[in-house]
């Protein structure tokens, strides 16, 4: 017999004897088998014969090997313990819940999760601590499971913690039925997903924020991808893509051809080349280009993005495109303004030169004469001086008038115009130069059609015609008689007046600038407009046209005046 169990059986027999067989003799004790293993023996018996002194004489009993049963018992107990252990110490909340919702058994985790003690929970139902918004759905599921429509259910629901805060739990419920299939109780597992829910919510908020931002900003945020085989696509682009390109995100998600087709032909080459460069150098991409949309709409687009090489050999850019049409227009206006200002500046400098030189010439002469006047006493000489003074005075007036003309040509925004017959005006100009032409024996060939009418300022036109004709005569070649040919025709919608002579020609390389310059007081006092061609050029330009000159030394000069 196993030593530990001996007192057990001894005690059991003693009690049996002392109670005169009232207390039954039965116990389970261990014996040590010859081979060393333990055998559980169930012993029971009864004293059947007593002597006159009440001492037991005969005991009848039997012993049974119950080792197997004991093993089974023990295994069962171990399973139960194990289950109890699993239940109790599970990291997930586990509970047994009655079909009415009463908490029957709860493990430690449920208590920790919900903040109640075991007793508190067992005194309440799950309905009482479920958030009202989730209760309906929960009960619906319970109902379905009880009916047998579904075997189990799973849902995310909110519980109220004892302290009032909200706990999000992932609930899994299944039903235990008895042998006859009647519902016994629910087994519920509750996983704490409060943290997960919080993160989900933050992600959702961030998504909303991103959507709002990307919807509001002008332009589009985008991803662009180029593969080594030349295929390209726009995997992601925000809403602004429609307004920019009249395309939807799905149109260009797998293939950017539709987008490329919208780019202006002249800009596409440079655009694609810049992408390739960024592809190879992995440097930031930035480009400005035009897109042609429906309805003749032309837009300037600015794109900028950062490339990243991908494991598959492609390059993925993350960037931003926006409409800069307005900015470009402003830029263009700025350039135009700058050009205007540059021109004005040039004119101002010219003007300053006139003042500095022409005026000073005359005022200088005046000074010199006045100086001399003091020392010269002879009457005849003094008279000569007086003549000179008159001459200087006239020159000064003239120069100042010329200055006024230069200023007024440019400040006069709304120049008076009237319809003028070009041929008639030319004839008038020729008549004023008749004497000079005759002196030099010149011939004029007038090829102007009779019917050309020009809306122009009469004074300007007269001045222009006179100056050019007079110029041709001035530059005549002494070796031959001057011959001037005048034509008028249309070139690309502009009226052109062409005055060609056979004079000495002008070395345009050397004198080109001076030709329309100011210093040329060729025939100083003879010309009404001493500033010559400078004024003419200004007049033509003030009316919106321009002048072109061609000349060959010793052959002649051709002036072409382009009227608007």
């Amino acid at each position, binding site marked *: 017999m196993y030593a530990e169990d001996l007192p057990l059986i001894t005690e059991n027999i003693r009690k049996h004897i002392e109670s005169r067989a009232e207390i039954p003799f039965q116990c389970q004790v261990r014996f040590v088998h010859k081979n060393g293993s333990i055998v559980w023996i169930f012993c029971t018996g009864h004293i059947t014969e007593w002597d006159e002194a009440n001492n037991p004489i005969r005991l009848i009993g039997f012993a049974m090997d119950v080792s197997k049963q004991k093993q089974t018992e023990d295994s069962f107990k171990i399973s139960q313990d194990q289950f109890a252990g699993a239940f109790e110490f599970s990291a997930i909340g586990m509970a047994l819940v009655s079909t009415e919702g009463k908490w029957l058994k709860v493990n430690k985790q449920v208590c920790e999760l919900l903040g109640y003690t075991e007793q508190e929970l067992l005194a309440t139902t799950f309905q009482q601590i479920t958030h009202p918004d989730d209760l309906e759905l929960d009960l619906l599921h319970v109902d379905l499971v009880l009916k047998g429509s579904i075997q189990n259910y799973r849902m995310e629901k909110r519980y109220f913690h004892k302290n009032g805060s909200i706990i999000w739990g992932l609930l899994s419920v299944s039903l235990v039925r008895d042998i006859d299939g009647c519902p016994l109780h629910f087994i519920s597992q509750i996983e704490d997903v409060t943290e997960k829910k919080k993160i989900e919510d933050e992600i959702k908020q961030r998504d909303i924020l991103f959507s709002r931002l990307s919807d509001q900003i002008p332009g589009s945020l985008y991803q662009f991808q180029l593969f080594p085989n030349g295929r390209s696509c726009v995997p992601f682009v925000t809403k602004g893509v429609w307004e920019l390109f009249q395309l939807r995100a799905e149109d260009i998600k797998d293939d950017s051809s539709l987008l490329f087709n919208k780019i202006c032909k002249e800009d596409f080459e440079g655009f694609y080349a810049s992408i390739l460069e960024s592809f190879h150098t992995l440097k930031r991409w930035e480009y400005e280009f035009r897109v042609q949309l429906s309805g003749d709409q032309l837009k300037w687009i600015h794109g900028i993005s950062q490339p990243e090489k991908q494991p598959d050999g492609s390059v993925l850019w993350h960037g931003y495109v926006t409409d800069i049409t307005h900015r470009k227009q402003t830029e263009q206006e700025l350039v135009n303004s700058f050009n205007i200002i540059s021109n004005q500046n040039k004119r101002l400098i010219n003007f300053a*030169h006139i003042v*500095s*030189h022409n005026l*000073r*010439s*005359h*005022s*200088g*002469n005046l*000074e*010199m*004469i006045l*100086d*001399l006047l003091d*020392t*010269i006493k002879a009457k005849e*000489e003094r008279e*000569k*001086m007086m003549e*000179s003074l008159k*001459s*200087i005075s006239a*020159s000064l007036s003239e120069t100042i008038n010329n200055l006024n003309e230069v200023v007024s040509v440019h400040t006069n925004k709304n120049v008076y115009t009237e319809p003028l017959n070009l041929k008639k005006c030319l004839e008038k100009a020729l008549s004023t130069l008749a004497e000079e032409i005759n002196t030099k024996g010149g011939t004029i060939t007038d090829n102007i059609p009779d019917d050309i009418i020009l809306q122009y300022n009469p004074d300007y036109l007269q001045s222009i015609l006179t100056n050019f004709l007079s110029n041709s005569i001035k530059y005549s070649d002494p070796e031959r008689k001057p011959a001037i040919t005048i034509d008028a025709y249309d070139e690309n919608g502009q009226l052109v007046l062409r005055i060609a002579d056979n004079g000495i020609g002008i070395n345009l390389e*050397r004198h080109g600038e001076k030709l329309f310059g100011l*210093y*040329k*007081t*060729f025939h*100083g006092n003879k010309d009404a407009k001493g500033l010559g061609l400078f004024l003419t050029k200004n007049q033509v330009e003030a009316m919106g046209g321009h002048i072109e000159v061609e000349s060959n030394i010793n052959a002649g000069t051709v002036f072409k005046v382009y009227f608007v």
Partner: protein
Amino acid sequence: MRRNTICIIDDDPIYVFTLKTMIRIHNLFDHIIVFDNGQEALQYFQTSPHHDELPDLVLLDINMPVMDGWEFIDEFRNIKPKLSKQMPVYIVSSSINEADITKAQSYSDVAGYLVKPLKVADLQNII
């Protein structure tokens, strides 16, 4: 008798007249030669190589028709070695433009720059 000759190259008749009068009154030169553009002056220098017929001093204007002062100097440089006389050339102009003054100083053949109107003292200093 050796004559003292001045050459004035200028197209402004009033100025020339005034200058001539000034020279005469103050007896600065015996003889005055006048050209109204650089071309004519050059022609004269090239065709009159006689020592006596060449001036001792040249006053040159900048703004003249046909050939202006700058062009004259460029051409003058070329013919200078062939001339039988050293002639100091002074640029005389009413321009007080910095650019013109600096340009004049950059020419080594230009002896100086005078600003119109000329005073007697200016001439006396350079004789």
